[in-house]
């Protein structure tokens, strides 16, 4: 019977107690796991049968409370939702279990999630509206308007995307994909009055959407298929549509593509950098540009290649553009 099939797996489990340990260490357990077992079952077996001091968060066991998110071989997962056999398919029979963020570990797999909640709160994850306390009728949202939220509503604040985001790992001001998904969720709601205020928050350099590195990891890792980067793109679009966009390197970098495509079909790489950075800002790129020029990597403006049938492209850029900057 398939369900009785077992596989032997070696688990390396991250251990750390901030009150007593200077450095973290790993305990190793070799266990037979079955077809039905999820990572949480393994953590329970280790705690109940081997070492009662192992600490981890667990609650609903149904993939909805979000507290059991951890990393297995670097992949953030909900422990209660992730079958061992699926992990074995990806990684083989050695599984390393770590907290979502090792540098934020308090005790074993439990982390201090303060930065996550602070940034979530920064996105104003609630409706702001003047509500009639004694309405004569229900305040209805049409299915069409409800669809605009996309899947942003499914977020369970587990932190899987937040602690997998490479931009956030380097730039501590960056709000991160979960906060942006929440900002989109409420700004896209027809009942909300704080959309512009939220767009200003996510439009700020360093903390806002412009620092997204486009790695797609948030879309890949989300256990609820929220697809945060899609919401980040939507926020970018809303920033331009609502004319909240500032004239800075980040916005000009996005707009510059449209200019270049209209002119050449292809992207004029040098001109994009000049347009984005401005005539003074571009100077900091000169040392690398000279090295590239020496190796034949810079096309001079008068040699800029153009797409064939450029008239078609020009026509489409004119007729299909939906925003102005």
């Amino acid at each position: 019977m398939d369900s009785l099939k077992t596989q032997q797996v070696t688990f390396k489990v991250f251990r750390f107690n901030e009150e007593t340990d200077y450095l973290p260490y790993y305990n190793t357990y070799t266990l037979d796991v079955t077809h039905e077992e999820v990572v949480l079952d393994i953590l329970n077996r280790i705690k109940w049968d081997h070492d009662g001091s192992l600490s981890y968060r667990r609650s609903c066991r149904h993939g909805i409370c979000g507290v059991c998110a951890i990393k297995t071989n670097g992949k953030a997962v909900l422990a209660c939702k992730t079958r061992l056999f699926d992990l074995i398919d990806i990684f083989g029979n050695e599984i390393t279990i770590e907290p979502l963020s090792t540098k934020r570990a308090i005790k074993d797999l439990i982390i201090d999630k303060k930065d996550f909640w602070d940034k979530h709160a920064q996105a104003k994850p609630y409706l702001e509206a003047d509500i009639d306390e004694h309405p004569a009728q229900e305040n209805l949202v049409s299915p069409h308007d409800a669809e605009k939220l996309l899947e942003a509503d499914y977020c369970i604040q587990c932190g899987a995307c937040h602690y997998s985001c490479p931009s956030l790992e380097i730039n501590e001001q960056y709000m991160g994909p979960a906060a942006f998904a929440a900002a989109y969720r409420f700004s896209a709601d027809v009942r909300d009055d704080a959309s512009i205020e939220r767009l200003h928050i996510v439009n700020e350099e360093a903390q806002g959407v412009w620092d997204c590195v486009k790695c797609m990891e948030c879309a890949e890792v989300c256990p609820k298929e929220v697809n945060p980067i899609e919401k980040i793109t939507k926020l970018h679009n809303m920033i331009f549509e609502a004319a909240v966009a500032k004239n800075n390197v980040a916005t000009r970098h996005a707009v510059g593509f449209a200019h270049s495509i209209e002119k050449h079909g292809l992207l004029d790489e040098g001109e994009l950098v000049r347009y984005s950075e401005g005539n003074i800002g571009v100077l900091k790129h000169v040392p690398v540009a000279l090295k590239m020029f020496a190796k034949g990597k810079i096309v001079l403006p008068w040699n800029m290649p153009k797409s064939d049938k450029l008239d078609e492209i020009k026509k489409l850029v004119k007729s299909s553009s939906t925003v102005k900057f």
Partner: protein
Amino acid sequence: MEKLKYALFTGCTAKESTPEQMMSTLAVANKLGIELVELTEASCCGASHLQDYDDFLSLVLNARNIAYAEKHGLTMVTICNTCQLNTAMTKHRLDNNAELKAKVNAKLAEVGLEYKGTSQITHFLYAIIDDFGLDKIKEMVVKPLSQFNIAPFYGCHNIRPSELQNATHKSPENAYNPTSLDDLIIACGGANVDYAEKNKCCGFHAELQSPRTAAVLTGNAVAGAMDANADWMVTPCPLCHLKLDTQTHHASVAIGREVSLPVLHMQQMVGLALGCTPAELGLSHHVTKVDFI
């Protein structure tokens, strides 16, 4: 085997900052007997930034590029991960949304084109692996790269989101443990190096607006490969290549450690193993000197 034939979407860098990528693509296709019909009408894909400004315009332009591949009745092959993502994502969205497809086609009709959804879109890496076959590559290797430890650097936009991997490739690979480039290194006779950053981000897309983030990511990638004793790195993405090849000074400053390794395009690695000359592969166009040939 019937001769493989694709519509080649070069993207912009192949025409500008990575000429060696274009040279090595053509040299390898020639060695493998793959026919590439260049889509000279194609525009820039928007490089994952145009859609932040104007999503609909980005869709229309990418649909136009695909429409030209469809006119040839060929699968489109890309040689840049970001071109692959933007083009395949456009196809995925249009093929799954009749209303959006109709809106885009209304625009394309203005220039006498139609997006039908009949062409597949694949990166040259996967064309080699899925369609040509690693076994055949192995048989054709004349200069095995056996003395080298080679670090694969996959590039985000080929492996994520897996939704597109699953829709696009015959044998989709897992974003958390990709194997295609490792397999190709082994087929070329090299030793593949395993390191944590191989499927991570190079930082390219934030280079202007967030230079420190971008530089740290580049530095981490090269440092990871160096610490795993790689002699050089290989990538299927020209944007990753630009970061890893030309930005090592900024990367070194950002992470406080001197990092630098030669980085080859995937096509250059295959070309070397198949006996192409360094000149055919444009190895002199690298900023970080390719000093092992």
